[in-house]
């Protein structure tokens, strides 16, 4: 089967600034890919090049086997990071217009818009002007506009930014429906938790370079967990005593208990048993690997990167407040 997207050796610079150094990527049809990285990493530039809004200085992009997205626009749904609408148009007219631009008849576009608006809790906004909607409502309308044509490839650039938790949940449900329909989904985010939840495969970009392209399941296998979460049976137990254990690198206290970091190469099973021997646990579990940790480890290991893990973590976390809320 033809890949939904094939990117080979693309490079893009804006004047002296190199936005994408070299990127190769193949996304099979029906897959869900998360394009992650901090702001300024090159995610939006990559997506704009996929959409033929920007053009690479070098390299090729094939969408459904076509040499340019311009030849397959009707098969693509795109929610840009900078989204807008015609303020004076009614929601119904705007969505119908977008549907018609994407090759649907007015009736098809209207029907699909009506169903999706209902699905996103906006059943009664059809006749309202876009300028009369709240920011969150408008963002959901724009999401509907992106997928109004039942696209085979859905590209979502930071789809959850600025949304309240309820809207995030509704959007995730619709994205899952699109997955089940068989659509290929690519979405970019700097909120790693969203990518963990929705994606099968993760592509990490940092400073215009791809630093990771792995399935989530493989990541979990590849990047062994080195953190154990402990909730003691006795709330007054001395948790800092765990630091004396040879396998323990660090102990961080929190409201429930503590988070224990292990030295590299330690067996988690042995560590759990050792910790339980020192402090009787009410609950003890291995923490799942977080993409944030993977990203920091990868970037820290790569050559030519001078950011400290703390700076990278701050950068990512500072930008992921929305994700935390969600």
């Amino acid at each position, binding site marked *: 089967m033809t890949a939904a997207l094939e990117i080979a050796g693309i490079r893009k610079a804006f004047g002296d600034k190199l936005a994408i150094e070299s990127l190769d990527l193949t996304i099979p049809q029906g897959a869900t890919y998360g394009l992650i990285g901090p702001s300024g990493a090159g995610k939006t530039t990559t997506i*704009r090049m996929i*959409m*033929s*809004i*920007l053009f690479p200085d070098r390299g090729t992009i094939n969408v459904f086997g076509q040499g*340019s997205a*311009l*030849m397959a*626009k009707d098969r*693509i*749904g*795109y*929610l*840009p990071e*900078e*989204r*807008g*609408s*015609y*303020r*004076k148009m009614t929601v119904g007219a705007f969505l119908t*217009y*977008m549907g*018609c*631009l*994407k090759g649907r008849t007015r009736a098809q576009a209207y029907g699909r818009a009506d169903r999706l608006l209902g699905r996103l809790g906006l059943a009664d906004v059809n006749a309202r002007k876009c300028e009369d909607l709240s920011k969150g409502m408008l963002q959901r309308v*724009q999401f509907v*506009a*992106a997928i109004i044509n039942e696209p085979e490839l859905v590209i979502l650039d930071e789809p959850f930014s600025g949304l309240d938790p309820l809207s995030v949940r509704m959007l995730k449900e619709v994205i899952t429906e699109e997955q089940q329909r068989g659509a290929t989904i690519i979405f970019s985010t700097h909120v790693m938790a969203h990518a963990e939840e929705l994606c099968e495969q993760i592509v990490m970009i940092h400073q215009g370079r791809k630093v990771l392209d792995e399935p989530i399941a493989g990541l979990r296998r590849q990047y062994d967990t080195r953190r154990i979460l402990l909730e003691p049976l006795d709330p007054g137990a001395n948790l800092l005593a765990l630091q004396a254990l040879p396998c323990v690198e660090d102990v961080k206290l929190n409201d429930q208990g503590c988070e224990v970091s292990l030295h590299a190469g330690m067996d988690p099973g042995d560590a759990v048993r050792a910790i339980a021997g020192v402090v009787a646990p009410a609950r003890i579990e291995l923490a799942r690997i977080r993409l944030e940790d993977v990203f920091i480890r990868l970037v820290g290991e790569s050559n030519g990167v001078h950011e400290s893990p703390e700076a990278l973590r701050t950068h990512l976390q500072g930008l992921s407040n929305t994700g935390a809320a969600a």
Partner: protein
Amino acid sequence: MSINLQRIGLIAARDYKAAISSRAFLVGLLVLPVLLVVFAVLVPRILNSPSPQVIGEVALIDSTGKVAPELQHAIVPEEIARRRAVESEQSPLKAVSPGTASGPTIPRMTLVEAPSDTDAATYKSWLIQPRDATPRHLALVVVQPDAVTRRPGAAAFGSYALYASSRLDQNTESTLRNTVRAALIATRLRTDGLDPTAMATVQQVFQPDSIVVGSAGDRSGSRGFAQVLPFACGLLLFIGVMTGGQLLLSSTVEEKSNRVIEVLLAAVSPLELMYGKLLGQLGLGITMTVVYLVMSVFTLAQFSMSGLLDPILIVYLLAFYVVTYLVFGSVMLTIGAAVNQPAEAQALMPPVIILLVGSYSLTGVIGQAPNSTFSVAMSFIPPVNTFAMIARIASSSPPPAWEVWTTLLISLVTAMLVVWFAAKVFKVALLMHGRPPSFGTLIKWARMA
């Protein structure tokens, strides 16, 4: 790269509908007719509306001793009115109501004769009087000794000096000057044994409307209409291009600042977007031009003058409108795509406006001398050429057809080049934000594309 005509049509239709139902367009559509009504109907009425009649005395020192009787006759209001009526009939641009004298209220002036040897330098103090004094002393006319009979060997007659009160208004002074002139001419003629009334009758030639003879038959012409038509055609072209271009610019800036551009680019290519927008506003401009043309024809029909308008002129006007709009509209569209706020566009607009206004302002001059070297040369230099050519076509002496078609061809090639350049800039400029660009930056973007 393939262009989807259906998408272009959809964008054009949306832009057309949005613009034609906007308040700005409706106001713009009404501005021209309102201005025409104001200038053609209201202004002359206001200017000719009766003002308070000036009543007062005019002193005369007549050293010839011959002018006074003639001036006494010429200064009577009825005589002034008669002279105005004759002048009005002889004017190429007749008054709105032929046969009636137009102009400000006729002053009622009484002539006061001073002795012929009176010293004017001393007597002029007669004009200085309290503000509310009656009768008012309006002016002092001092006729020179050789004003009626030339000095031996002199080529010209002498004249007169006019001393005016500080409160004398311009219209009364002008009426007095014309009256003294008429009296002097009459006196000179009578002194030479000629009858002034007969001479005035001899000089009266009323201006007829011309009859334009053509292969399709004769039709009545109007010199005034022929003088106004090139200017009016230029005005239609100017207003259509300016309105279409401005709406194009503002809608593009709005779409960019609303961030709807990238949403659109998800569905259409930059070129489809640009062509759609150009086409939508072109339709709007044509609608506006057609509305004005229909109104003009209707107005002319009211005065039984619709035959003066050649239908081919309307066809050429629309054709030249399309190419002129494509040139200026593309540039304005590019500016709209390049800036982030309407205020930023103002920095890039002056050269475009100057070029557009400059081209339009030439129509009056070119219409007067349609076949001069300047007019012919301007007809082939873009972007002035469309304005120059439409003024020439609308003039009383239109150019040969090959010149018209050559101008149209040059304009078409120019339009294609400008659209091509605009498309290159448009693609890059659409997603550019930050510092507003200069024209140099636009050229750089065109090279990048």
